[in-house]
């Protein structure tokens, strides 16, 4: 067990340390944060035999270049169709390899996707906040943002996982048909406005960060003047400002808001939606709350099967069954 020292040769915006997040603190104004794509995050960790909640690095389309100054460490990259340049070789994300002293690993956006995860065989030495390394982007609290020039230490490094590809399931691809439940404040909108919201083809815009993304599409202004005390909001809320512009709230969302929410994206569709890029089209489909529960359960089973297969696929020591996430949506990374 030794250390590796990684130097950040370049980090684009929105590159942060994440773990599975700190749920349960919204009553204190703290959103759960955690990965934008929870399935890809778990896949990167499990492909290395790590616990599913081990801190890893979330890489945005801004990209990341790391140089290994000392030591040697196994790593996995999962999520999106990013391009890795490592040791003179180009390959796609969804891969396990080793980073050795003197080598450089560059992760850049490729043909598709907005987020990928760099997990490492070892412990990333980083601060925690309220018991979690997940970075809350607004405050910078948690493991933190990666910045050009920083050095990061990995303790207890291993190089045990087999090098090679991680299977990329079809449900990890970007999702354009987004399922929602209506409301909770759809009553503020005229019926024809709700109809316009559901029939339009929307576009992701480049006004995005970990807190939310603005959509381009028809105006869907509320019918009545807003006079609503702030209400709690969830990740996935589609909120509409007074000027009729819609936004979807994401991992680092505000915990309360006074704008009406015309609809809420199913949590099990959010990971694949987060992989959309600016100008990608998307459409919304309403499902009933009963159907939403069923879709969440089906999605959780599918993710569980996929992740269990990744753990079994690892060739090293036994005992990985107990590292699987429990069968609970609180820790399961849902996908479409």
């Amino acid at each position, binding site marked *: 067990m030794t250390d590796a020292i990684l130097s950040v040769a370049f980090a684009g915006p929105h590159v942060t340390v994440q773990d599975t997040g700190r749920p349960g603190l919204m009553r204190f104004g703290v959103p759960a944060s955690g990965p934008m794509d929870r399935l890809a995050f778990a896949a990167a960790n499990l492909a290395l035999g790590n616990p599913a909640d081990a801190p890893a690095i979330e890489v945005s389309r801004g990209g990341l270049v790391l140089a290994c100054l000392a030591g040697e460490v196994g790593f996995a990259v999962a999520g999106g169709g990013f391009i890795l340049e490592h040791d003179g070789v180009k390959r796609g994300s969804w891969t396990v390899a080793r980073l050795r002293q003197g080598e450089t690993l560059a992760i850049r956006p490729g043909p598709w996707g907005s987020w990928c995860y760099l997990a490492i065989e070892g412990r990333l030495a980083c601060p925690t906040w309220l018991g979690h390394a997940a970075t809350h982007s607004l405050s910078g609290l948690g493991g933190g943002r990666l910045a050009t020039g920083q050095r990061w230490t990995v303790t207890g490094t291993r190089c045990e996982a087999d090098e090679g590809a991680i299977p990329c399931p079809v449900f990890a691809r970007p999702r354009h048909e987004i399922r929602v439940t209506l409301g909770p404040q759809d009553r503020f909108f005229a019926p024809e406005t709700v109809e316009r919201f559901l029939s339009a083809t929307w576009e992701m815009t480049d006004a995005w960060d970990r807190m939310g993304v603005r959509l381009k599409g028809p105006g869907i202004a509320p019918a009545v003047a807003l006079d609503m*005390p702030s209400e709690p909001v969830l990740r996935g809320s589609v909120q509409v400002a007074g000027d009729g512009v819609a936004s979807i709230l994401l991992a680092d969302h505000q915990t309360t808001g006074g704008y009406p929410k015309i609809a809420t994206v199913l949590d099990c569709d959010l990971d694949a939606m987060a992989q959309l890029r600016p100008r990608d089209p998307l459409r919304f489909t309403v499902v009933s709350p009963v159907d939403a529960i069923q879709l969440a359960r089906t999605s959780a089973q599918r993710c569980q099967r996929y992740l269990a297969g990744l753990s079994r696929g690892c060739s090293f020591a036994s005992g990985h069954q107990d590292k699987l996430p429990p069968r609970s949506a609180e820790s399961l990374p849902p996908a479409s």
Partner: protein
Amino acid sequence: MQGFPRFTPVAEHGLLVEFGERIEAAIHDRVLALDAGLAADPCPGLAETVPAFASLMIRFDPLATDHAAVETHARGLLTRPLAARQTTPRDVRVCYDADLAPDLAEVARASGLSPEEVIAAHLAGRYEVFMYGFAPGYAYLAGVPDVLQMPRKPTAVRGVPAGSVLIAGPQCLVSTLTMPTGWWIIGRSPTRILTEDPARPFLFDVGDPVRFRRISRAEFGAA
């Protein structure tokens, strides 16, 4: 009130319970009563509850339960009499010196008071934590005296330091991050809402009464 409480499913993991559409103590009391009821007697699959001014969000695990089961449980709790609330009074220290209170003079002009009278009115307010929101540790305190109630500024001011004591309308808050705000800055507090104490990371619980205590510049500097 007609039509309340109103239960609205939110995606596959939320149930919003609304008790009204105004910021009002009686409505807020019902929010906190259900919040406390669920803490004492949680339904299977309960993940967390988030109280706000007039509504409570109940988050649950869709693999363990569903909206209907959570609603049935919550409705059962609502039939019970309101229990006495367990709250703890909290003190927040505040220095009103002019350089830490850039809007004190403007609030004085608008209210027709002297700056000292504004400070006295602010200190005399009976505040209660109605909810957290916006950002970590941003606790919205209801109870700003009528004479100090002003609409927000038309545009936000950038870079307002953490610890600023802000008022707008009936609400007061002590900021925890350096952020833009359109609220009026009438003082600065060394009291940490994000305490950095792992045993009690947030100073207030929702429902706690809060009192402001004036400190001198020397005490502020020493804090």
